[in-house]
């Protein structure tokens, strides 16, 4: 069971949250995106061994979305930061593979 620091409510168990998939995937301008680009936006996600930026929402609490950096190797939560903020630098933050 992961324990995640909600920026508003503090450390809470995973069961209170909803996972929202990879972070920093902006919705592209539909008029300027071809089919392949749209498919990329909809379906293609990285699958790193290492640090993964992902979205979480505190569903059973404040219901706010935020971003998390998590190591997919040991599930350590390396950073929690607000929606819209840039991905912070963390030691060993470069993921392998993709």
């Amino acid at each position, binding site marked *: 069971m992961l324990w995640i620091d909600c920026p508003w409510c503090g450390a809470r*168990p995973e069961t209170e949250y909803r996972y929202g998939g990879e972070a920093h995937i902006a919705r592209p301008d539909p008029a300027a995106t071809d089919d392949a680009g*749209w498919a990329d936006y909809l379906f293609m996600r990285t699958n790193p061994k290492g640090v993964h930026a992902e979205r979480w929402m505190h569903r059973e609490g404040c219901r706010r979305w935020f971003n998390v950096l998590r190591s997919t*190797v040991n599930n350590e939560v390396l950073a929690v930061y607000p929606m819209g903020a840039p991905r912070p630098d963390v030691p060993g933050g470069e993921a392998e593979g993709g």
Partner: protein
Amino acid sequence: MNCRLESGGRIDRTQRLRFAFNGRRYRGFAGDTLASALIANGVHLTSRSFKYHRPRGILTAGAEEPSALVQLGEGARTEPNLRATQVELHDGLVAAGVNAWPSASCDLAAWTGRLAPLFPAGFYYKTFLWPASFWKAVYEPAIRRMAGLGRAPEEPDPDIYDRMNVHCDVLVVGGGPAGLGAALAAGETGARVLLVDEQPALGGALQGLRHRVDGMDGAEWAQAAAARLAAMPEVQVLTRTTLFGYYDHNTLAALERRTDHLGPDAPAHLTRQRLWTVKARRVVLATGAHERPLVFADNDRPGVMLASAAQRYVNHFAALPGRLPVLFTNNDDAYEVAHDIVAAGGKVLAVVDCRPEPAAPLAATLKEAGVALYTGAVIAATHGTRRVQAVTVAALGEDGGLGGGRWRIGCDSVLVSGGWNPAVHLFCQSAGRLTFEEARGIFLPGEATQALEVAGAAAGSFGLAACLADGAAAGARAAHAAGFGDGRAPPAPPSDAPEPGAIAPFWLAPGLKPVGHGKAKHMVDHQDDVTAADIRLAAREGFRSVEHVKRYTTVGMGTDQGKTANVNGLAILADALGKSVPEVGFTTYRPPYTPVTFGALAGRDRGALMDPVRRTAMHEWHEAAGAVFEPVGQWHRPWWYPRRGEDKHAAVARECRAVRAAVGVLDASTLGKIDIRGPDAATLLDRLYTNAFSTLKVGRVRYGLMCGDDGMVFDDGTTARLAEDHYLMTTTTGNAAHVLEWLEEWVQTEWPELRVWCTSVTEQWATLALAGPKARDVLAAVAPGLALDADSFPFMSVREGTVAGVGARVFRISFTGELSFEINVPWHHGRHVWEALMEAGAAHGITPYGTEAMHVLRAERGFIIVGQETDGTTTPQDLGMDWIVSKKKADFLGKRAWIREDNKRADRKQLVGILTDDPKVVLAEGAQLVDRPGRPPVPMIGHVTSSYMSPAVGRSIALALVKGGRARLGEAVHANQAKKFVRCTIAEPVFYDPEGGKRDG
């Protein structure tokens, strides 16, 4: 045969207990386990093995037991596959060995042992392949009957279970010398400490030993330590509690057995077991070690037992494993077992040591006591049927095979020691890496992934002094890391135990015939009946990966997860492959460490408490009216209201006719309602819906379709504009929470600049759908202040007013095609207004109708239900709902996807109506449609999504998704129905009032 010692042990001889095993009556003492009581009664044969039905006995004295599995208790409380070594004895206990028919001593299925050549490794995969139809009909049932372990109870579980959550600074797993040292050291710092141990009393391995700690008997020292811990206010000790799972972020799970040891005397108010979830800052794993069996010919006969288990039975339970034991070892420490047996007044016939020149300090003492010593020798065979009666000792030759020299020794038990395996199960579960140490042939905890320490024998420190010191140091370290104390270990108590002795890893003793030849079995996995020959066969057949060999041979796949088998199995595989053990690798351990009851996992979440039930404000009225309820998500909605003598069909038909002819009322309170406010509310809705809502006038209502950015429909509903900056959205019942999260996700993550707030008001407003040509008359009677004529209150508009004396929002929308008013009132007034409508409508024959009638009525009008006519691959265009897709809006969710080639295909599945040639035939929902009946394979062209008998149309009707269906109106298709084909015609998906003239009444 009475094998109880006259004195000694830690059993309570003042409390005699009666019990029954395999149909015979025995006596034991309080403090016994089932296994120790059986041994004291001279019983070793407990059960039969899984595959060959070989007689099996008690191998161990603890959680690692692979073979003495019992069915405990009777009736609703019976429990299968419990380890006799962990079952505490109580008066009146009834148990039987598993997998024996009719009994363990006379098992009719033992013929499988004689057919053993037919059951090699992977025999499931080889033997039962052909013919395929035989698998389900013949092989599987037969195998299940033969191979099943215990029996599951057939009655509901009468006991209560509970779930607990606890946070601590330091969790110590294991209450042996290392764990006690860790808990004391951590507890002294003031840290909040939780100590968990599976035994009834603390002490762990100390209970099996005769060594002294701090000047007192080891077990007494453990009790003194327990008393010190009990006096520390921040320390909690859980005994009879197995920590079985180590999960992410130092979250662990433990099973506490609270009443199992009390038997029928258990107080009824106590929960039977508790499932503990522990969140720990630091964890100290002091889980000890399991002794490793030696693998030799017919090493699974009852009477063959681990040496340390024998030591525990003698020292702790005052029970001799046999009157005439032979000890077989590869290490010095096992000599202490022989020494303890002799010291307790027992006899040891011989020590067989596979090492050529052992230098065990105790060897000389044993010789003086008359114990024969065979060095450079192995047990090459055991003899006997239901219990070992003799062994053949043979000298080892230079080449590792047998040399000259054979000695047959009559005996009644064989005590074996192959060294120790650190109990790294929880460490593995925590995602820690193992390393292999060649010298002792053991896997050790390596790099940890989580915040933990490993102490004592679990870390490979096998000596008692080392365990005590190691534990204290780990406890102090863990507390310091959690913010308590300075991290320096307190001095460890002294002990008189010697340093651990020498060991020479030894994996497979040669038999009288080559391994795999003859009848003898070199058993590696006692629970799954996997032999050394099976593992070698797998290697010969080309299996290289340890993971594949595990699954092919099933080694380590029993309920014991191979605690006694895995390392031996790996070493034998490595030898067969000509590799080193670390090169072969290690299969991982997974939770649970020992099996966990379903009752404990379910806790209180069973029966009515399994899932919350949501009821509307009118629920009791519906119940009183005899409604049949339909679960919709967590809601219970009236399905239909049968009158006396009516079946479902008759009741639904009557309700439908009432709505079409006069008036009906539906409890629609469960529809999702979301209040949307803010200056950018209109912008948000424009982006989320396929049609425009910024153009909607205040006081008006619009139906909308919601799609994902993949272009697929995922919800629909009506939305009213209550003010410039205020909308009320409705969603489908089952999707309400999802739609709210959908709105919030877009507002928070993609468009944070929008000033808009979304709030669920589903449970703030009770909703009553009044439908039918007489609806206006009924509403007028209870809402005299509302102008209800079609000009003042047009279709698709909303009015606020007073209904039955209650402030209400009334929506003129229709899901039936009839004149309809959806009346929303504050939730707690719902029942009052419902009853007022029933009273006012009585003269018109007002009829409450349920969800089934609602479905029929909407299908007659061709209205879709999301999730029934759609399946996540359905676009608005597929539904023939282009009319609701905005051509003007530059962008909204879903729009981009529709210009993909795939979404423009002419042969996409499209919504159509289906009329059976025989109007009395109602198709099954989900029925597949084909162009022409014929022998399979037949191309499927679509499926039926909704199907009903329609009272208004006077025949059956159906909706379906059919490939290119819109272009095929009037063509014939065939539906598969009960293995026959039903001829149908594709039609428009509107069956009733296609002009929509009825909606104004």
